[in-house]
């Protein structure tokens, strides 16, 4: 292996990439695309739909509806307008209490009439509170009609049965979500009243108790002073790990995806045979991988510098777990080497840019699968699935880094085991990819089947 050849190829590929407008554009656009969702959500959160939430209530208990109307009135007074600007910032809840049908025959007609009003958009939804709602339930009572499975199974209406919410609204229904609290409060108070407790002179009986998240109490090793627990920041618990993992995934994808096109292009434009006249396939592939590593390191340095400036400007620099930065770079390098070698082998198997496009999704799987798992990992960072998946080499860099960036971290042995796994797997990927690359790079026509490519990897 001749180092100067590898470096010459790496230098050419590096400069060919970073000098393009596409690279500069990608540096800016990739974070916008990744972060765009969050930015749009925070922007739209301040611009809610202010249309009135019209809900009809058919209360068979005769006591819960009053509590709901009262809760809606209280919420409207509290949340409807911004205290400073006096502009409306939340939708108004308008509840219409409907007397239940006088007889069983009119019951279905009433439900149908209310459904028609929902269909004609006079109402957003209607709520039916059955008599049984006041009866303290046992788990077995709800077994047959607990939360539906999401499959839209039919359910027979019953005026006595619990609480039913009828609507044709799609997506996340905020009205229903908000109603959970007031209904539960109203029902609890009604049950207490049934037991003879004077609820009017005992205000706040149904009030919930908020739980405040705090960090652990610490002792200062130098002074011996015990520091009180601090209020835990959502930024530390969620945003920082999420952002660190996303940045890693983004840089790896931006750094490795062009490799596939680059190799296919060299092959389809007949450049590769000239190169192979001067360098071995392994030197050629290694040089290309090194070029991509250089591109990724350049991107990451720019993001790290920009991120450092941003967190300093926002005054949250202290929230960043600086100890993971070395891990970030170790994972970045191994992941890019692994994916670029894989991309080189895939690219060598392609004869046209269209072939490469078809295989691009395969290449990005080691980044996409961990991204699909981000929420699961954030919920249970040390659960069985996140732990196992973060020790599977293609997924280790993103998932282990995400877990390491969380406040509780991971058991000390896991990053090291993960690192050994990743290094071994990266070495294996480069070895196998170089064997496939050598055989496939001068082949034309239909891409090889998986079994054939594996045979090349094993037998060379």
């Amino acid at each position, binding site marked *: 292996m001749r180092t100067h050849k590898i470096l010459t190829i790496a230098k050419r590929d590096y400069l*060919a990439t970073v000098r393009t407008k596409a690279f500069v554009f990608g540096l800016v656009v990739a974070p916008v695309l990744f972060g765009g969702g969050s930015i749009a959500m925070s922007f739209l959160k301040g611009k809610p739909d202010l249309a009135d939430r019209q809900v009809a209530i058919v209360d068979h208990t005769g006591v819960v509806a009053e509590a709901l109307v009262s809760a809606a009135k209280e919420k409207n007074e509290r949340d409807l307008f911004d205290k400073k600007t006096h502009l409306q910032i939340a939708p108004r809840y308008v509840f219409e209490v409907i007397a239940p049908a006088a007889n069983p025959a009119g019951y279905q007609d009433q439900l149908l009439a209310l459904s028609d009003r929902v269909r004609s958009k006079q109402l957003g939804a209607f709520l039916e509170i059955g008599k049984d709602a006041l009866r303290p339930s046992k788990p077995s009572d709800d077994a047959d009609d607990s939360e539906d499975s999401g499959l839209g199974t039919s359910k027979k209406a019953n005026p006595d049965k619990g609480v039913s919410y009828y609507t044709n609204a799609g997506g996340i229904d905020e009205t229903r979500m908000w109603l959970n609290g007031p209904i539960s409060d109203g029902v609890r108070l009604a049950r207490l009243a049934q037991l003879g407790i004077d609820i009017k002179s005992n205000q706040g009986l149904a009030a919930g108790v908020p739980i405040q998240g705090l960090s652990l109490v610490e002792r200062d090793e130098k002074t011996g002073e015990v520091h009180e627990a601090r209020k835990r920041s959502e930024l530390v618990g969620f945003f920082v790990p999420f952002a660190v993992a996303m940045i890693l995934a983004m840089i790896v994808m931006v750094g490795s995806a062009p490799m596939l096109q680059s190799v296919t292009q060299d092959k389809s434009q007949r*450049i590769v045979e000239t190169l192979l*006249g*001067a*360098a071995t396939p392994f030197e050629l592939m290694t040089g290309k991988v090194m070029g991509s590593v250089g591109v990724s390191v350049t991107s990451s340095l720019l993001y790290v510098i920009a991120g450092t400036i941003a967190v300093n400007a926002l005054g949250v620099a202290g929230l960043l777990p600086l100890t993971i930065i070395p891990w970030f770079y170790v994972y970045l390098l191994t992941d890019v080497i692994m994916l670029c070698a894989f991309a080189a082998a895939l690219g060598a198997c392609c004869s046209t840019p269209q072939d490469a496009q078809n295989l691009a999704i395969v290449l990005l799987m080691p980044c996409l699968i961990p991204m699909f798992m981000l929420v699961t990992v954030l919920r249970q960072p040390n659960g069985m699935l996140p732990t196992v998946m973060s020790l599977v080499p293609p997924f280790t860099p993103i998932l282990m880094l995400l877990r390491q960036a969380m406040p509780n971290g991971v058991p000390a042995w896991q990053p090291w085991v993960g690192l050994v796994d990743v290094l071994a797997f990266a070495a294996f990927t480069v070895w196998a990819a170089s064997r496939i690359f050598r055989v496939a790079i001068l082949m034309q026509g239909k891409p090889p089947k998986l079994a054939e490519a594996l045979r090349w990897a094993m037998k060379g």
Partner: protein
Amino acid sequence: MTAVDDLSLTVPQGSIYGFIGPNGSGKTTTMRMIVNIFYPDRGEIRLFGDGRPETSTDLIGYLPEERGLYQKMTVEALLEFYGELRSGRSVKAEVASWLERLGLASRASDKVETLSKGMSQKVQFIATVIPEPKLLILDEPFSGLDPVSAEAIRSAILELRRHGVTVILSTHDMHVAESMCDYILMIFRGRKVLDGTLSSIQDQYGDDTIRVTAEGGLAAVEHLPGVEQIRDLGQVQELRLTRGADPQEVLRALVAQARVTSFSLTKPSLHDIFMRIAGPAAEEANHANA
């Protein structure tokens, strides 16, 4: 499938060695094995004495048949890249010299994508000869070139040979093979069928060819006794005699029916030999024997 089978050849240092043969006969595969792009299943290749291909690639300049250049690079940057890739040192001076020599100095800063096909081929040739190799392997170096560009490349190859560079080239142009090559190797269906100097190859076939110019052209030489095959070159007809035929008898028969302007007994041309080995008649004979 066997691309090249039981092929042995020795290329004398400082010579021009021409590979000829029909498409798919194994010329490019042989060249790729010499350059170490393909590895032979059996046998061995030794370069520059005892050198193996894998340790000798820096001494070889290889021009593949399927040309390709990085289109977005400037001519100068591209040539410096190829030169540095092979030599590991800066080759700015050689690049400037070769661009001047092949009339491309004014295009040094232009992107490759702006060049004409002929210019691109010259650039590819320069990329092959920088830095100066000891062995030059050129797969169809004149393919697609106009006469002016072809002449420039031909002169450059001959000059390199004068400086001691050994050249292996493949060509479908029999005139190029006859006029440029010291030795000619013909590969047919993966096997060597001819190997030697032009005259030694022609000697194998003897003086069995007559070149004739006669009034009436082709019509005048048809139906002559002792003539096996006629190749009509327009103003001249080339007649191949049957084994044992007497050229004097052929001349007498020809003079009896037409006015003859020229008549010469020669060795067969390389083109004729090529056709005897790989032409349709040979194919038919092979099928019949099979």
